[in-house]
């Protein structure tokens, strides 16, 4: 993965979010306050603007800029969560110009750890951490990342939030009424990973 792949990753994610803004908002209306699509779209519009304007040397630089967009433009829970994930992912990439599969795994793990730390989340609490945790496990299963497998596990993890009772985030206020609804942050995180897989599985990473 080079800096161009990183840019393509985020731009692809931005397009997915833009076209799913209403869907994510519907999901968040069922268990939260109905702003997840709006929040994500605001942050990614800004990030895309920065990525078009500036040039970057490394994937780490790209992710740093994306992190700043999330932290300063989004707010809510998803701003600090995505912002911290991107910041730690950027740190994990360091100054490397190209990331090998080993580096991509480390980057994903850094992001997942950041979400867990910022949200004080554990697995099974119906948050985006459930998806991050599954992504890291799936990526680490094979020496060369099997993106088909990662996609499948990511989708499963996002879908599995539907039957969970929320323990963290706004959905937790609904208690048992949160069961039966997908977690919006898990669905958007799945899109982030789908975009990464699309970018990396086509060529050699």
């Amino acid at each position, binding site marked *: 993965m080079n800096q161009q792949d990183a840019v393509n990753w985020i731009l692809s994610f931005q397009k997915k979010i833009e076209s799913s803004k209403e869907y994510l908002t519907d999901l968040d*209306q069922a268990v939260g*306050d109905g702003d997840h699509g709006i929040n994500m779209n605001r942050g990614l519009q800004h990030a895309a603007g920065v990525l078009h304007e500036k040039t970057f040397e490394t994937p780490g630089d790209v992710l740093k800029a994306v992190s700043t967009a999330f932290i*300063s433009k*989004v707010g*809510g829970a998803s701003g*600090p969560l995505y912002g911290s994930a991107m910041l730690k992912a950027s740190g994990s990439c360091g100054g490397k110009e190209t990331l090998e599969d080993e580096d991509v795994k480390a980057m994903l793990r850094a992001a997942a750890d950041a979400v867990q730390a910022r949200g004080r989340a554990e697995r099974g609490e119906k948050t985006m951490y459930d998806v991050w945790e599954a992504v890291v496990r799936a990526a680490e299963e094979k020496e060369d990342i099997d993106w088909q497998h990662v996609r499948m596990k990511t989708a499963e993890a996002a879908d599995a939030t539907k039957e969970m009772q929320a323990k963290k985030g706004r959905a937790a*206020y609904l208690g048992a009424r949160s069961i039966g609804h997908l977690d919006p942050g898990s669905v958007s995180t799945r899109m982030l990973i789908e975009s990464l897989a699309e970018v990396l599985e086509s060529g050699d990473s």
Partner: protein
Amino acid sequence: MKKLINNASEVVNEMLDGMVLSHPNELRRLDGTTVLVRKDAPVQGKPAIISGGGSGHEPAHAGFVGRGMLDAAVSGEVFTSPTPDQVFEAVKAVDGGSGVFLVIKNYTGDVMNFEMAAEMAEAEGIDVKYVVVNDDVAVEDSSFTSGRRGIAGTVLVHKILGAMAEEGASLGEIAEEAEKLVKDIKSMGMSLTPCIVPEAGKPGFTLADDEMEIGTGIHGEPGVERTGLLSADETAAALLEKIEQDMKLEPDMDVLLLINGLGATPLMEQYIISRAVHHLLKDKGVKVTETIVGEWMTSLEMAGVSVTLLKMNEDRQRWIAAAADTTAFKR
């Protein structure tokens, strides 16, 4: 959706402009931010009190900026916590050398964004302390979950901590009282109709004409329970019963009663609820030392009310009675 707006993505910006134009002697907006501060900020020689959160709760939070309450309010998008950099700008602008106290409502987003701001301020050598308000008894209190939400009782926190700061309390003393205070405030809300976030364009849930939600928060979200339509007296009893599970109501106890309209409930109905709560408390021998009725922490145009009880003592009587000069609350 039928709203008096120009552009759904500009509502917060245009509202803040409108507030400053309407109250030029009281409020000032920090350039390029969503922060409103006291016109005379930073006030030297007293800790500054900052609150904030998503917009859509007006007059909270900027309506409580002024002498005796808040030094600054930070507004996020509708129902969305503001970002750390905005909070940090507020901290820098109001710090008068005696430190800054943040009043945070217990929502994952608010806690994370304000904590990040506190970390930024500490890195700059500004003394920052905070309290997380969690007065809503609708949701279970548990260390395994996000815990309870902060709702209308937050306004009483603004009043008391603001009065303490004016009276000469230190940042440490304010932090100490804040921790005790939040344990002594309990609230419970309900709603008759949902509300529409401008950018979403449609309501968060729907309620039939003969239904209501009990345990509703202040973000247009559903409550914890849906029931058939109850009368005002029955509603007041249901809300109080829930509060009572957490706050033992004993004879000769002193409480402050706050009735909060959620946005579309007329004062007539708020007073009918107030009457019912007064009767119920009287039967228990609980003394209401003061009642505050009105719209303090709204949820856009939601119809509904919340009831808040604060345990009173001599100090709190004095802080509640102390002068306050804000656009939404004056004494």
